[in-house]
């Protein structure tokens, strides 16, 4: 069985301008949404707050639940259905984390039972103090930063075979971050600065593969975060894990195309780069589609059957895999061509 016949030759590179416009539009929409929504909607992991998941033995109305929470520290909380409707499960969320809520679960159980007349079970309760939330936010950003740093060094070393220069890149990024951290720059800006520094260095050293890979990663992560913001989904710790996985996955795809480009560059050194890049994308197309399909199959299984707790996580993976596959074909490879006119 074969989906893609050998010798297929779709003109991907020829359509790179259209792809460029599409990507740019998606990125702009993502950033726009993020600005309008004032950043991602942080879950309690990052914002601090209290989350309680309750399950009723029989159907209840939302109003009854809200009535039960009146006159409690939880009066100002958001109640939301969780999972399937027949599960009778609800999430109660509030920003409060006061120590007065120490016996919160007992109180909620009592009040909700009183208000709804239905037995209730506290299935999960999470309280994250604002301080811990801040720490976790910092940790998550550092994780992203270090992942990017190591991957940058690995790609620039592995693909350009210039480990010494890739060491310079690492030192430059760390140095820039260190100097900025002396001025108490907040971490998101620190990350932005690190990215700009690495892109500038790649440009300076003509690390085109590294440039392509990093731009593709930025593209994927920005759009995934943007889509999360559009769907008003919460940004939690597992989502950070999903983003890092997406980075790994997108890079995986990109590297396989790049490997083929390098191989073909040696094989057909007389052909123009455009042809070689397009040929390489076509040659690896079958694999790209197959792997995306198998990965999507399992992630869809997780999304549909995995239950409410892991729903957002699998949603992030789902988007990331789609975008990552697209970007390795339409974003990473065309960037290699950016150096083309200057060379000749």
């Amino acid at each position, binding site marked *: 069985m074969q989906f893609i016949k050998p010798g297929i030759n779709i003109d991907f590179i020829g359509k790179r301008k259209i792809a460029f416009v599409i990507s740019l539009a998606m990125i702009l929409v993502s950033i726009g949404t993020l600005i309008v929504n004032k950043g991602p909607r942080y879950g309690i992991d990052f914002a601090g707050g209290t989350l309680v998941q309750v399950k009723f033995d029989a159907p209840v109305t939302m109003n009854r639940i809200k009535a039960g929470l009146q006159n409690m520290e939880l009066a100002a909380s958001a109640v939301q259905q969780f999972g399937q409707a027949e599960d009778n499960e609800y999430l109660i969320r509030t920003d409060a984390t006061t120590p007065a809520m120490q016996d919160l*679960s007992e109180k909620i159980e009592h009040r909700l039972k009183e208000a709804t007349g239905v037995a209730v079970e506290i299935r999960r309760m999470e309280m994250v103090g604002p301080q811990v939330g801040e720490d976790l936010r910092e940790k998550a950003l550092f994780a992203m930063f270090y992942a990017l740093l190591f991957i940058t060094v690995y790609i620039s070393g592995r693909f350009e075979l210039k480990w010494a220069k890739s060491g310079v890149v690492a030192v430059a990024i760390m140095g820039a971050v260190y100097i900025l951290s002396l001025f108490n720059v907040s971490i998101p800006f620190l990350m932005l600065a690190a990215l700009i520094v690495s892109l500038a260095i790649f440009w300076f050293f003509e690390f085109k593969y590294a440039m392509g890979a990093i731009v593709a990663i930025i593209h994927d992560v920005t759009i995934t975060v943007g889509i999360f913001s559009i769907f008003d989904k919460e940004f939690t710790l597992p989502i950070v894990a999903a983003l890092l*996985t997406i980075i790994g996955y997108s*890079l995986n795809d990109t590297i396989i195309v790049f490997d083929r480009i390098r191989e073909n560059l040696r094989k057909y050194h007389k052909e123009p780069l455009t042809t070689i890049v397009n040929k390489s994308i076509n040659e690896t197309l079958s694999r790209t589609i197959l792997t995306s399909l198998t990965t999507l199959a399992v992630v869809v299984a997780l999304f549909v059957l995995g239950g409410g707790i892991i729903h957002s996580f699998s949603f992030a993976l789902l988007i990331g895999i789609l975008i990552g596959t697209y970007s390795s074909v339409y974003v990473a490879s065309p960037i290699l061509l950016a150096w083309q006119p200057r060379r000749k």
Partner: protein
Amino acid sequence: MKNLSWRLIVIAAVIVTAVIYVIPTFQPGVWPHKKINLGLDLQGGMHLVLEVDADKAVENTIERVAQEMRQLLKKEHIRTLGIERVETVKLAVKLAKDDDNQRFDDLLDEEFRDLRIADRTVKNGVLEIVLDLPDTEADHIRKLAVDQALETIRNRIDQFGVSEPDIRIQGERRILIQLPGIKDTQRAKELIGKTALLEFKLIDEDHDLQAAIGGNVPAGSEILYETKEDPVTRRVQKTPLLVKKRTSLTGAYLTDARVQIDSQYNEPYVSITFDRKGSRLFERITADNVKKRLAIVLDDNVYSAPVIQEKIAGGEARITGNFTTEDARDLAIVLRAGALPAPVRILEERTVGPSLGTDSIRMGLLSMCVGGLLVILFMAIYYKGSGVVADFALTLNILLIAGGLAGFGATLTLPGIAGIILTIGMAVDANVLIFERIREEMDLGKTPRAAVDAGYDRATLTIMDANVTTLIAALVLFQFGTGPVKGFAVTLSLGVVASLFTALVLTRAIFDYFLISRKVRTISI
């Protein structure tokens, strides 16, 4: 040929090792190795992060020094205009007479060498000396407080009876506590969070209680409350008491505390036993204050304030106060384990009920089976015989991940299950790369054997490169992640390594076996 048999031996060894590690999880007791650890999100339980208010320990130390100094000055007949704690961790001593200054300085040199003289000023003929602890000393006290708090909490939890608790220091002042399978979370929290500072203080009977409540609290005394809950009406009754600030005796001198049942009223109480020094102190206090009331105070709550009938020797006392048996038991535990050196505060709490954990396992396994089956069917249809080889590799992959989890004593969490599921989808990638390459080589007219060789040789480097990036992401996540997310990083890393092994070593050996040993001429791909 010989090369192939060596590879088969290695493969067999790896599989057997994995099986050995995995079996106890499904068939406990076959041999003594631990089951795969389940995270709190899968088995239910409580995760707590506490912050030790370590500055309070420094404050307490200064307060203790102040008391000591007052006693010494009294003994030496050195007169001061007052010793006061200022800026929470400093001690201000005011002196008037000149000749006492010299004697005070001598006393400082002899008895309080550890204190630093932060400031020395003379104003209106009054000499004010400000003393504090050197920074290294204060840091040491803070660190000690956190260490002691950890020990005390560990003691309390051990006595409470939780199987396999995980209690550790996180950062500088935080304590991470994981209590798997715990049901009565409220009680556990109270037990852990209680400072449990037991103090015996005399009731101030020289001053009027009503006047004190009115705002005129005499120096050296304070108002504390005795709270009692009526077991029938559930009415809480608060009785104010005027108590002397000075602590006569603390729980630091306890050697034992246990629950007893009062034979007369059939009510539980806690009987406490003092050590030798404590017994002597207790005997002296009771002898000096017969017919006076002694308040038993725990964390500024008065439990009871009985009248001392006679001198009590032997170092035993009882704490009564309308306890339920559970309350009494918990009080005995915290008294035995000792007081926390400083108060703690809950910064983070995550509780998962056991039913939710079971649901999560069920749903996770279901999606794993469905996803895995989809991939296995797809590979078998798309690559026929070779697809079946890849499917075999995939199945082994899951076994290897499970073996790795058990072998390294790692914890499986819900995101961890997601990581395994994701690995199932991504692990076939290596085989897809190889098979596509083999197909390409065969289209160029190579024999199956040459095509397989070329396919593996060319794809190996690409597969390595592609997997290293995922591994980098997973390792960073492992370093920075907490709890469930860490579980994801673990299974993802294990999955990447396992898939490298199954794709590059295992499937290759199978192909080589058929093509070289069995001399198969065609290949189903």
